[in-house]
Each structure stands twice: as structure tokens, then as C-alpha cells.
């Protein structure tokens, strides 16, 4: 099990950041991802592995007012 934005989410072998984003349906074009307080750049999403127990924050980044 991992935590995604304070909620539990099932973990499985081979889970990368990109796999997780796909599972959650996060398709917004401005997203930032932090895994255990470490930012993961977009170019690394496909290879950065998520480990069981990780704490992931996914923000849909907005700047309008």
C-alpha cells in the first residue's frame, strides 16, 4: 500500500510514477510529483519506481485567479 495525497492506494510490482498517474487518471498537463519529499521531474516519470509504503503527492498545478 502507498499513500497518494493522504489516501491509501494499492501498490504492485513494477509501479512507476507514470503507471501510478495512469491508474489515478491524472492527465492534467501541469502536474508536479513528489515521492517521499523528493520531486520527480516529468522526464523521469516512466522510470522512477514507486516502492511499497511510499508517500506520494501529486499536485495539479494552477496559477490563475
Amino acid at each position, binding site marked *: 500500500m502507498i499513500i497518494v*495525497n493522504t489516501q491509501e492506494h494499492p501498490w504492485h510490482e513494477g509501479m512507476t510514477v507514470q503507471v501510478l498517474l495512469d491508474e489515478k487518471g491524472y492527465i*492534467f498537463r501541469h502536474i508536479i510529483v513528489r515521492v517521499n519529499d523528493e520531486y520527480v521531474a516529468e522526464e523521469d516519470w516512466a522510470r522512477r519506481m514507486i516502492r511499497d509504503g511510499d508517500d506520494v503527492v501529486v*499536485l*495539479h*498545478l*494552477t*496559477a*490563475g*485567479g
Partner: protein
Amino acid sequence: MELERYRRNLPEISPAQQDVLAEKHVLIVGCGGLGGYIIEALARAGAGHLRLMDGDTFKESDLNRQLLASSMNLGRPKTLAARQRVLAVNSLVEVEESPYFLSVENAAEALAGCHLAIDALDNVPSRLLLAEACAKAGLPMLHGAVGAWYGQAALLPPGSKLLERVYPAHCRGLESAEKMAMLAPVVMQVAALQASLALRFLLGDEQPADLLWHLDMERGSLEKISF
């Protein structure tokens, strides 16, 4: 206290708290989407002194979401329309217009005498500028931002680095409200969240620092994230 005007604030806002609220000075930076609804909520609740800052005028593309944008107000300064609206709904509120965009030169003066600064801006650099000015002035800042089906809000203690974490350097060129979809109901929700947090802060509620409220109306969630 004007008992009848504020009767439906009871019992959540007591008469004594209403008097406290009447003494508070709040700077709202940005009088467009978020700002318009925040100003409306604070004025109706009875926040006593509102300083409204925005150098912009209303244009046709504001009509889809901004409370104060109307056919009659096109081309008019946003601060002027906001001031007239406040006085129409609650003449007890003292309103000060500052029809300028926030800048390094005017930030300190804009914050002078305030208890809280509210970020209703539409771009990252101005938010970081406001945060820096609030740190220097020792003032809390209530951040809010919105785009598409998403939004966020956070009460930042003076000197908080939350915005620098939320907007890492490579994201600071993020497209502004000019390009990202801005939907009225999502703008209203983020503004309502900011206004609620502002009222609770002004009434003395202790709130955890650097907690980011993250709204996702694509999936229908509101999360409080330690960031």
C-alpha cells in the same frame, strides 16, 4: 454591532467576535475571479476594513466567471467596481481602493496596517513577490490559485517557503489565467475556501502552518496535504 445585519452569522460568529472582525484590516490583491468572490464574502461577513488592489479593468473574457464583471462594468477599473459592490452590500465596511498592480515598489505600502494579505493573483511571480513582502512585514498570507477543474489554497505564516515548494523553479513560467481554462464554479469554490480560511484566521483560530488544500473537481476531492 449591527445585530440584525449579522443575525445569521450567529452563533458561529458571536457578537464579540463580530466586533473583532469589524476591527480587522485585510488586503486583497487581485479583484478578478477569486478576488471578487472573496471580497463579497468578507464584506457580507463583516470584515471591517478591506483594501482592494488591482490595476486591471474588466474585459469581455472575464464575464464567464468574475462576479463583478458585467456588461455595465466592461472597461471599468476592477477596484472601483469592487468598492461599489462592497458599499452596496455592507456600507459598514471601510473600503480603500489601490488601483495598481502589485510591485516591488508598492508592496510594503499596500501591506501597511493590515492583519492579513490575500493572494487572488493570476501569476506565479506576483505571488512570490507578495510572499516576500509579507515575510518582510511579518504578515500571514492566504494563498489561492485556480485553473481548469483544480485549485488550491493555503494559509502561509510569515516567511513560509510553501509557495517555493508548490511552484518549483521549472514551473514558474506556468501559463497564467490568460491561457488556462477558468471555470466559474471552480473559481467560486477556491474563493469560498479562501474566504472561510480568512474568517477563521481573523477570528483567532489556530491553524496548522503550511497545509495545502488541494481541490480536484475532475474527481471530486478536497485534500489537505502537508507540503
